[in-house]
């Protein structure tokens, strides 16, 4: 799976869970500061991403995933 494909997949999740416009989702965007994803919604994003990409994202990793790019890198390395 390419980085672009993972970004697109995350954008779908972010739209479903938090109402984020897919056009706003890019690797450089911060989940909290740029996309306005609060902590409870981030939990939902992580669980949905695990399901979508067939990876495990432990809770202690989630705090390191500040940007969409961080998440893409983590998922790309796991899958």
């Amino acid at each position, binding site marked *: 799976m390419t980085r672009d494909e993972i970004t697109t997949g995350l954008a779908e999740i972010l739209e479903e*869970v*938090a*109402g984020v416009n897919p056009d706003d989702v890019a690797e450089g965007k911060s989940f909290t500061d740029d996309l306005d994803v609060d902590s*409870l*919604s981030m*939990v*939902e994003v992580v*669980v949905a991403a695990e399901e979508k990409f067939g990876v495990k994202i432990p809770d202690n990793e989630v705090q390191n995933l500040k940007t969409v790019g961080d998440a893409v890198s983590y998922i790309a390395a796991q899958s």
Partner: protein
Amino acid sequence: MSRPDVVVTGLGATTPLGGDVASTWDAMLAGRSGVSALTQEWAEQLPVRIAAQLAVEPSEVLDRVRLRRLDRSEAIAIIAAQQAWADAGLAGSDLDGERLAVSVGSGIGGATTLLAQDDILEASGPRRVSPHTIPMLMPNGPAAWVGLELGAKAGVHSVASACATGAEAIALGLDIIRSGRADVVVAGGTEAVIHPLPIAGFSSMRAMSTRNDDPERASRPWDRGRDGFVLGEGAGIVVLERAEHAAARGARVYARLAGAGITSDAYDIVQPHAEGEGAIRAIAKAIADADVAKRDIVHVNAHATSTPVGDMLEIGGLHKALGDHPVLSATKSMTGHLLGAAGALESIATILAIRDSVVPPTINLDDPEPGLTLDVAAHKARHMEIPAALNNAFGFGGHNVALVFARP
């Protein structure tokens, strides 16, 4: 310092009869029933397959993402509160949040969230349970969301007294303003538990009507053919305000909340006291608190749920506490029983009855009980001057609440 007067300056509701107060009130005056058959697959196995479902789905009002994190009872509380707030002319106002409180309760709370998330837990394990589960099911959720929505910083309260909740929440609002803790209180009740488990539970108590083949005629307070209540869902919210505060901002005033009476039976967990003793005391306390002459209380929106025992006990209580002159309504004949929202929705009906000088009808009262010795506006609305009116609400647990509203 003399006790401040408290007035009602805003109304909001979403009910089985309409998505707002105006459509609900129009339907009530026209004598329409909000009860229909439950066509969901889960209803097939139930002994009760009728309910009074919302006329307007919350998804038509609130956006999808917002609804993901709201229990249905919370969503409709927000919707009704937004309406009441706008109706009071407070939308966009510079009201000090530290002078604004919320008192919104629910009879059963976020039960449908609890049950849905339990299904997820069983099927998919704990990691799939929504992180929104707790704020969706906590009993203070509706009050807290309304407080967030409106910026209330003088306290957010969630009364829980079963089917008396909505009325008791309004009574608490009265106390809050009288005590000086707030100038404005957004008060009322919300309920949304049309789901197989609550229906099965009430049904096992033999409390619900099983007139499945004739939904619109199932809720029939005081009629000899009544066989239980019909479960309804909805929310009713009022804006209560210190009268001087309302006058200073030139607010339109619907009515005065003149007084409240609250008692408990200490008799049985679900059965009302055999002589209606607690109800009589609540009505008497409300009248005394209101400082309104009994003869001026010419209309009562009764609790009257269409259950065999409770309906007639209330008649006896009204006779003793108020006399034989009031004209009654049982608007549950049209809305079904909104449990924790009932007392709030019926307060709204009582307030509008005063404003419009009209007693809403009681439908389905085809064969009145011989003991129904008080006048009821059966089938059709009745126009008459209403200087003051009473709303009763009683709940499992032995809760009795009576509210007196009067012309401003």
